């Protein structure tokens, strides 16, 4: 399927999928199970968009029962399926909805009925019981309900999607490949004009069908194909990550969705969020200090210990909201449903955009997209993702928080040196990722390894592990030029974006040490700077 044509790199595939988030990778797997080959590209890497910047809540649907019964029911059905079919990605921890003094009692009182309508099991418990289950809950909680919320590891989910497609022999993934335009001819997209964003090289990808799973960038991508029928507004959501896990269950505030009202365990940490701010440009999604303070203040009403918790980073994701559905200004009130846009009224027969939706409903979104693409290709195989379990293997298991630590502790093989002490990720994990994980066909960087593991995600946020992993990659010959240090610089620069808004208290000393290490001991701030006099670089 690949080859060179003239100066340009050229690929041919049945289906080109643009966007390596959970939706795009879900489609890749869906198609592979139908025997359809696809090539997945992302201008960055897997989970570079909302799929890597979300709350990780596998919604029972409870969150949406009041405003959007349809989405609620979808969430219920899909979450039940995923718990069965992708158990490695899911922590079925359960969830609580709690109302705190000052929250509308009527809203709280109607909650069980709403749940009943959407078919979501919901059990009222006393505030005392709730506090026994979650000691960090405020004394001011006056109503509490238990629902089957769960959490999902979106990184593992995408990695397993891609890996399954790869192993079936019907899918390839190209990272750092951005779409810049399309060759359109006779109502068809003949090829996508892409660029390898690391080498700068132009690449042409011909496909019979092209799927736009560009998330918040879907509108931009559709426009490249001349389609004006994808209209998005962008809602930025920000979350903060604590150093430790603060609750056993998902804790939701029982009120109309607002800032800082869900605390979701993420294995060994907790994520508090979100905020919702409309932004102009989906690429402009840094978490801000004002957002962090607001989320934290709200969260502490529900769980007072949050006020003196150590937070290790903040991050933001962008929710693409479909204008067509008449979204209101507040992004959170808009529909969480998804749309499959066939572009047939734009006189294109082989292009489809899938937009909106949720992490929880990604499989359903992939199924609908797969159905359309298969039908267009004349493939009659039915969707299989609702019956075939999502397989896992060693190289894709390292994103699970706590997994590496448990695994290493059990083996206690001192010669398998630990590279990331915070998360206890050993060199064997890095080696497995470099040789086997999706994307390993291409040159792996520290950043790519971090995405596929817990490296850089612990308390030190890359202060130490960046240096240790880099050394290891030099030792393994994965790095063989000074570019390795540039990649380290890029990695720590990227990590910093998320650390900056939570720099106070006990995270600040950690940052101070990181900066002295990265500058004083590694010279990353001076890479490339010339030393006067002597010819040697410093």
């Amino acid at each position, binding site marked *: 399927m690949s080859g060179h044509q003239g100066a340009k790199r050229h690929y041919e595939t049945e289906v080109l999928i643009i966007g390596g988030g959970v939706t795009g990778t879900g489609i890749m797997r869906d198609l592979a199970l139908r025997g359809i080959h696809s090539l997945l590209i992302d201008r960055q890497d897997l989970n570079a968009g909302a799929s890597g910047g979300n709350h990780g809540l596998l919604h029972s649907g409870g969150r949406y029962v009041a405003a959007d019964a349809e989405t609620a029911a979808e969430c219920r059905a899909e979450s039940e399926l995923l718990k069965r079919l992708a158990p490695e990605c899911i922590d079925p921890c359960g969830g609580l909805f709690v109302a705190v003094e000052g929250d509308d009692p009527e809203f709280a009182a109607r909650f069980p009925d709403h749940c009943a309508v959407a078919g979501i099991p919901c059990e009222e418990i006393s505030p005392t019981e709730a506090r026994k289950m979650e000691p960090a809950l405020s004394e001011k909680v006056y109503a509490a309900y238990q629902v089957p919320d769960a959490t999902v590891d979106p990184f593992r989910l995408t990695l397993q999607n891609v890996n399954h497609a790869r192993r079936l022999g019907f899918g390839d993934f190209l990272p750092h490949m951005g779409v810049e335009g399309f060759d359109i001819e006779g109502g068809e997209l003949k090829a996508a004009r892409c660029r390898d964003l690391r080498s700068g090289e132009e690449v042409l990808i011909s496909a019979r069908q092209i799927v736009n799973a560009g998330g918040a960038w879907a509108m931009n991508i559709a426009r490249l194909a001349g389609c004006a029928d994808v209209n998005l507004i962008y809602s930025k959501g920000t979350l903060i990550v604590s150093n*430790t896990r603060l609750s056993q269950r998902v804790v939701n505030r029982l009120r109309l969705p607002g800032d800082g009202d869900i605390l979701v365990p993420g294995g060994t940490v907790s994520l508090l969020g979100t905020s919702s701010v409309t932004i102009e440009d989906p690429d402009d999604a840094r978490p801000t200090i004002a957002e962090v303070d607001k989320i934290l203040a709200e969260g502490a009403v529900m769980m007072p210990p949050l006020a003196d918790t*150590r937070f290790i980073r903040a991050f933001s994701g962008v929710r693409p909201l479909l204008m067509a559905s008449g979204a209101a200004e507040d992004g959170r009130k808009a529909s969480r449903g998804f749309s499959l846009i066939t572009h047939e009224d734009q006189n294109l027969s082989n292009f489809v955009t899938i937009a909106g939706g949720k992490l929880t409903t990604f499989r359903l979104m992939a199924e609908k997209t797969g159905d359309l693409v298969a039908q267009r290709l004349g493939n009659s195989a039915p969707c299989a993702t609702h019956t075939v379990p999502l397989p896992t293997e060693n190289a894709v298991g390292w994103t699970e928080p706590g997994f590496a630590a*448990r695994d290493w*502790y059990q083996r206690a093989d001192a010669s398998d040196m630990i590279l990331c002490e*915070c998360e206890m990720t050993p060199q064997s994990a890095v080696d497995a990722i470099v040789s086997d994980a999706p994307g390993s066909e291409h040159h792996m960087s520290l950043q790519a390894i971090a995405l596929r593991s817990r490296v850089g995600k612990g308390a030190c946020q890359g202060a130490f592990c960046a240096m240790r992993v880099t050394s290891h990659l030099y030792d393994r010959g994965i790095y063989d030029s000074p570019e390795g240090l540039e990649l380290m610089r890029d990695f720590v620069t990227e990590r910093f974006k998320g650390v900056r808004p939570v720099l106070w208290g006990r995270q600040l000393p950690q940052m101070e040490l990181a900066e002295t290490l990265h500058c004083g001991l590694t010279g990353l701030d001076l890479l490339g700077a010339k030393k006067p006099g002597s010819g040697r670089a410093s």
Partner: protein
Amino acid sequence: MMSGQDIDQMEVMNFQKLAHELLPGGASFESCIACGLCASGCPASGFYGMDPRRFIRMAMLGLNEELSRTPWVWTCTQCKRCQYVCPMSIDVSVLVAAARSNWPKAKVPKGIMRSCDAQLRDVSTSAMGVRSEDFVEIVEETAEELRGSDRRFADIKVPVDKKGAEFIINQNSREPAAEPEELAPLWKIFDYVGADWTYASKGWAAENFCMFTGDDELWKQMVKTRVDAINELGCKTWINTECGHSFYTIWKGVERFGLKADFEAGSLVSYYAKWIREGKLPVNSDWNRDNLKFTLQDPCQLVRKSIGDPVADDLRFVARTLVGEDNFIDMQPGGNANYCCGGGGGFLQAGMSEQRRAYGRRKFDQIATTKADYVLTPCHNCHSQMEDLGEFYGGQYRVVHFWTLICLSLGILGPDERKYLGPDLAGIGLET
């Protein structure tokens, strides 16, 4: 008691929660910056894949099952060196003690449990099973022998339960149980300085293996028996003998369990130093004709964990005076920064000799670097461990008590009180 229960069925402790409860806010696990100084400086690093940083990280990651069950907690000697080198002053040993307390008694290393059980059996609190009345008898017999064998001590008094004595002293069980002749040097010193002192018949034993089980109740019981006995005799000052953890166990126990103690606590070493400075113990190094070299082991329990620099200074002052300025070679690092020998925390009794010796290798290297012929230490655990290390790694040194050298220098060391001296010193002072 949970005896018989399997480790797999042990209750799982929540270490994050414990860290919040047991450690001060600024020094809780939450402050850890993962720098690894603690692990780098901990001789127990590496056993069972653990080290202090990993203990903290695993607690923060919620690996409670693993931490509840790791046998590593029996290899950490609770020496608190990790806290000493940590910029955030994080103390891992407190959580190690908590983890130990959770182990079913049947699974606690047998040596520790047996010793503690023995201590609980009699008011003597002796880990070697020396009962109260036996102790009184052994003391009396040994004193009698001494009076008979050495004219200089024909009238020596060895009081037991003397109410209102100025000093009350405890006694490690090893001497009455195994080498009663080693009791005498200390008596001679007391006699020499004219101290008004006594033993207690109850709770006289120094060692406290119950503390090492991690079970606070047992620790408390030990301390209470002893403190009550001292209170009862109305002595002004309790002097802790040449034993490390016995000092820590009492003062820390009194503080931790809010016990009433009507006396002051002092270390024997500090009194040696005081008496030397006051001229009451006119020791010098004249006996060291061959300029034998001596080094010193600071017991963690006495120095880093208790008195700190003042006692480290006293130790050196006494040692230098005894062996001669030029014959004293300090171990590096020493004082507060010293390494645990690996005999502490019950390690010596825990039966894990492979790990214990690996732990002690650093101590062995330290000693070897000084090229000393003798190591002085006021601690029975350090003493035994360093002897064992020397044997195991092929060291050329011997380990001695201070009381031996003091009596040697004063010319009052009896011929059968020289068990720990080598041939180079065995004859000194006996010629006349």
